[in-house]
């Protein structure tokens, strides 16, 4: 008997994992012309794993602190063997993960995969998207460079616009009235402890729900397959789909490597709290649509402060987005069109406003 088989037998006796793998072996993936969209969730998960691994490596050298953060990242970029690669991959992977998370969300929306009984999968996914944006916001400050410093200042100031609880939240986030070293250590804590813990729990729940409920099929196709079961086409999840997913991960890895090598993530200049904010400062691309909207709202709308109105509108919009599946009625045709229309509008708005924000001075 080969050593590998002996080891497998030894583990099987103790863990009984063959039984655990049974559902995985039985699991199938529907095959149709839109099946490629199913890869996005897996790619996002893969990028999250990359984030965790590169994040742990960065932690070996990164030092949170007003006087050390920038220098430690500079040290990682210039002195640590492959430090530049790890940091660049971490930064690029973060951006790609946010992009694929958004793409995954919209694919789920357009494929109607959020419908009953998958409401909780949607809710956990949207919360994960918010967490991923929180990762982006908190991680952006960690190199303590000028752009990050002022972006955090602007970002936390926007939080303060929320009536009653806004100011206390801002002070909690900043660790005081101003963005200082205290903010940096807090953001570091959120970025490497609080958010990863929450995200891991939610990812487990999300994946468990996907496993439990199976993969959704577009409603039209579902009706066709129910009427004509012989037309139903499926692929085994393991190994057929998994191997294809692995190919997608390899492609993602190649893209990440190319981006990191050709466009290493810039470090910028060290933050100086006494320096004026750089002209035309903008947040990261995934916050740009909100930032540009807030810029366009007039200072006063009726008797309400424009910025407060904007922040409240985005807050309410986020909450409604989270609860979107619960608005779909059992008599779906009209509501379906309404939600699809909303999704198209939201996507067009986000893309349009982001492009406008990028081009605006």
């Amino acid at each position, binding site marked *: 008997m080969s050593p590998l088989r002996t080891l497998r037998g030894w583990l099987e006796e103790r863990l009984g994992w063959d039984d655990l793998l049974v559902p995985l072996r039985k699991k199938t993936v529907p095959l149709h012309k839109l099946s490629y969209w199913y890869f996005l969730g897996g790619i996002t998960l893969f990028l999250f794993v990359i984030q965790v691994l590169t994040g742990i490596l960065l932690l070996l050298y990164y030092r949170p602190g007003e006087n050390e953060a920038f220098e430690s990242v*500079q040290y990682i970029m210039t002195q640590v063997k492959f430090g530049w*690669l790890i940091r660049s991959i971490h930064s690029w992977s973060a951006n790609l993960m946010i992009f694929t998370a958004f793409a995954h969300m919209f694919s789920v929306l357009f494929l109607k995969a959020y419908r009953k009984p998958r409401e909780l999968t949607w809710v956990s996914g949207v919360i994960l998207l918010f967490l991923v944006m929180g990762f982006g916001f908190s991680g952006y400050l960690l190199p303590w460079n000028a752009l990050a410093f002022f972006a955090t200042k602007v970002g936390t100031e926007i939080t303060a616009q929320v009536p009653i609880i806004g100011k206390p939240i801002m002070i909690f986030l900043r660790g005081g009235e101003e963005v200082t070293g205290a903010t940096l250590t807090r953001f570091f804590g959120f970025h490497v402890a609080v958010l990863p813990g929450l995200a891991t729990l939610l990812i487990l729940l999300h994946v468990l729900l996907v496993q439990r409920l199976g993969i959704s099929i577009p409603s039209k196709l579902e009706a066709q397959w129910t009427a004509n079961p012989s037309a139903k086409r499926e692929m085994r999840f393991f190994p057929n789909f998994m191997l294809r997913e692995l*190919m997608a991960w390899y492609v993602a890895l*190649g893209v990440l490597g190319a981006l990191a090598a050709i466009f*290493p993530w810039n470090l910028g200049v060290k933050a100086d709290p006494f320096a004026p904010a750089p002209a035309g400062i903008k947040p990261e691309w995934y916050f740009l649509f909100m930032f540009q909207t807030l810029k366009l709202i007039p200072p006063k709308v009726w008797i309400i402060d424009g910025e407060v109105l904007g922040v409240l509108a985005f807050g309410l919009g986020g909450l409604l987005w989270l609860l979107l599946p619960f608005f779909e009625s059992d008599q779906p045709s009209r509501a379906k069109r309404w939600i699809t229309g909303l999704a198209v509008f939201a996507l067009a708005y986000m893309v349009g406003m982001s492009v406008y924000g990028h081009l605006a001075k």
Partner: protein
Amino acid sequence: MAILQNKLRPFSAARCLGLAFVVFAASLGYGQTTNSCLDCHSALPDPLGVSQDKFSQDIHAQKGLTCVSCHGGDPSSDDPDKAMSRKAGWKGKIDRKQIPQLCGSCHSDPAYIRQFNPSLRTDQLDQYRTSVHGRRLAAGDTKVAVCTDCHSVHDLRAPSDPRSTVNPVNVANKCAHCHSDAGYMKGYSIPTDQFAKYSTSVHYQALAVRGDLSAPTCSTCHGNHGAVPPGVDKIQNVCSNCHAFQAQMYEKSSHKKAFDAASLPGCVVCHGNHGIVHPTDAYLGTGPEAVCMRCHTPGDKCDQARAALESGLNRLDSAIKGADQVLAVAESSGMEVSEARLGQDQARDSLTKARVTIHSFHTDLVDQDIQAGMKVAARDLQAGKEAMVERDRRRVGLGISLIAIGIALAGLWLYIKKIES
């Protein structure tokens, strides 16, 4: 001290009541006749016209002084004969010759001035009397500038006010008003192209274009009320007030002795005076901008020293530019070269220091700065080159990784095909 007495005249209860009535009446719109001077003069054409609006801009009006403070008279009377009667102390138009004395009656009184601005100097009149303007006025020349010519009158603002005629950015224009007027200056035997030259200077660029208030204007070198600024024996030595290091170097140099012996005015010999442009390393060359060769003979000992100085500066300048170029390419390729970039500032500092040390005309001293800069520039160039090598290495590594990923993808695809066939 009539004005002082006016100001400190005690208020009686009756006056307080009267004042209260005036304020009340003014609030009802009946207070238009309290200053009969402005009532009439606001309707008169120039030069007698003074509007309420114009006078309210005047620092004296803002501090509570009125027409009476300088001109005397009785502004409470609507009757011109009473308002402008000698009995009421009316002085009429102040004679030009009397203006410095009138202004000085308050501005030379420290106790009085302290009430309004404790930091304001009170030696302007004494200073003025030592100036060419003051001396000529005393000799009977009324064409020379008196206080009101520079500071304006009836709308006089504090010099710190950007609208003031004596704010640093406006001083040169104010001086030019007379000094650039060839007709007006006829008979004084001094040039009238100072402002035209100054407008082309590096100092004017700094002050008027960049708004750098530390840059010199006419009064910085020539003084304002008096003659030259304190501590300066000759106007040509005034440069050392700001350019202290250059002056220190020059004081120890061989040129100092030679220039003194030939009665040449130091800095001005090479740099000029009103039309000083930004000096370049070409001053040390042999081209059209060269200044050394105006006096020195080609091939002599000094010419050799000049060539050594010029070559040293050019070498360091080229080394800095070369390193900058490589670092810029490395940076645009995403390489982290900020430390070397910072180092370049050090090299540039050495170049600036060498350009200052040039004023010692001592090749060894200048060479020390050049060598220090060259060392830093060479180190930064090396850092840039290493960054470029690293960039290429990364790209080769990427190529190999992509080939490996491609092979893995092909293998996976073949395996999928195999298990699905």
